[in-house]
């Protein structure tokens, strides 16, 4: 990421980003829930040019058996990029990056899922990136969150994720591909949201170069962005289920 090329790459022109957004503006987010027949819960989500689909299976009997925990559910989270999701075909199967993303994403969901209600079971969260355009881990978490609600899993709140970046010295919300490639820093967050309020940070990573003050600024921006996404997650779920419940 950090490279001398940064200096050459103009990512902000006349106070606007290359895709016309303001610094604290999200890309367009579209969410649809209950899109898969076989899964217990599912969600299709677009965030700018990102397209992802999340499926939740469970609670179901955890396999292999020796993995079962007699006091709580085991949560699995699999982040996976389709080979055609990026410019150069990605080799199928988990690479090191996917393994790390899956780990930290799972840790965020373990904070909200009420695992102790489902002893000996497994709750599987599978997210496929169909098209990638930066910020895929955040978009996948947002989709997975909706899919978990759709599956009827008991949770203490909702997880909502968004990244901030530093490009041409400016802190910006929800970077897209060019900003991610040539920016100076990237910092994804996932927040635990309960009753419309951010309760804590569940996922936090950062790479690049940021000062203490830039981190503070970025976190404030991320919180606002996450609240907007949270509202869209809610809307998507309520839209689906209110259609079903009119009598």
């Amino acid at each position, binding site marked *: 990421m950090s490279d001398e090329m940064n200096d050459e790459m103009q990512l902000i022109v006349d106070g606007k980003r290359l895709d016309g957004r303001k610094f604290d503006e999200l890309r367009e987010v579209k969410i649809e829930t209950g899109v898969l027949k076989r899964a217990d819960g599912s969600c299709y989500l677009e965030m700018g040019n990102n397209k992802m689909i999340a499926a939740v299976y469970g609670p179901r009997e955890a396999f292999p058996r020796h993995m079962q925990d007699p006091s709580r559910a085991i949560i699995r989270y699999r982040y996976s990029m389709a080979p055609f999701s990026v410019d150069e075909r990605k080799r199928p199967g988990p690479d090191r990056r996917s393994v790390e993303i899956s780990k930290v994403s799972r840790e965020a969901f373990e904070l*909200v899922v009420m695992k102790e209600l489902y002893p*000996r079971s497994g709750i599987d969260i599978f997210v496929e990136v169909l098209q990638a355009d930066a910020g895929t881990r955040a978009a996948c978490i947002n989709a997975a969150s909706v899919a978990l609600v759709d599956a*009827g899993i008991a949770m203490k709140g909702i997880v909502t994720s968004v990244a901030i970046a530093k490009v041409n010295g400016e802190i910006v919300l929800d970077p897209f591909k060019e900003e991610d490639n040539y920016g100076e820093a990237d910092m994804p967050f996932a927040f635990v949201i309960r009753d419309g309020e951010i309760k804590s940070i569940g996922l936090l990573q950062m790479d690049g170069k940021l000062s203490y003050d830039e981190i503070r600024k970025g976190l404030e921006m991320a919180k606002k962005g996450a609240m907007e996404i949270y509202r869209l997650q809610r809307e998507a*779920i309520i839209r689906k289920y209110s259609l079903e419940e*009119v*009598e």
Partner: protein
Amino acid sequence: MSRKIVLPGDLLATNPRAAGYGTYIEDGKVYSKILGLFDKSDTGVRVIPLKGKYSPSPGDMLVGIVREATSNGWAIDIHSHYQAFLPLSENPEFKPNRKINDVLDIGDAVITKVLSIDPRLKVTLTMRDKVCRPVRFGRIVAINPARVPRVIGKKGSMIKTLKSELGIQILVGQNGLIWLSGDSSRVSIAEGAIYKIEEEAHTEGLTDRIIEYIKKEKEK
């Protein structure tokens, strides 16, 4: 009449004593823990689930399938993430001189009742109810457990309709497994009707359309 849809984490009440089904308490407040419909009454608040697997309560009638026969009873699959067990002592058909597998064998279906649930969420079943029995004939149909109330209908109206229109036996397990028995072509019509109810649960005039559907199918 529409009730508000709530999501996990939504604040429902500030009095912990009001906490009912589908809620959790933290810091003295009551929150929803599942997606569902908010139901407030004089006695408290609860969330009626819109989705999700079956969660057993004592007294529920279920349809299950025997998965394992052991020296002290039977492990029963109740189509849920809960593990259910029917002890020998809760099956009046069991006598000391009988072989366990002769009473109930792997693969047998049973109509059974939830006796209790222990803190580890292991479910104990009983056959001590006049409805309970092994079912070695008929057909079992699976639907989304959240749709069970629709299939039963208000005060059992839907199920009565199906039974009287088709002249078959039907038992709806709270776990979403439904046992049907009778003339096989009639059972097939009932199965189709049940899927239709599950699919169109949210639409108006469902009972009339089901009667129509059955008529059309019978004429085929």
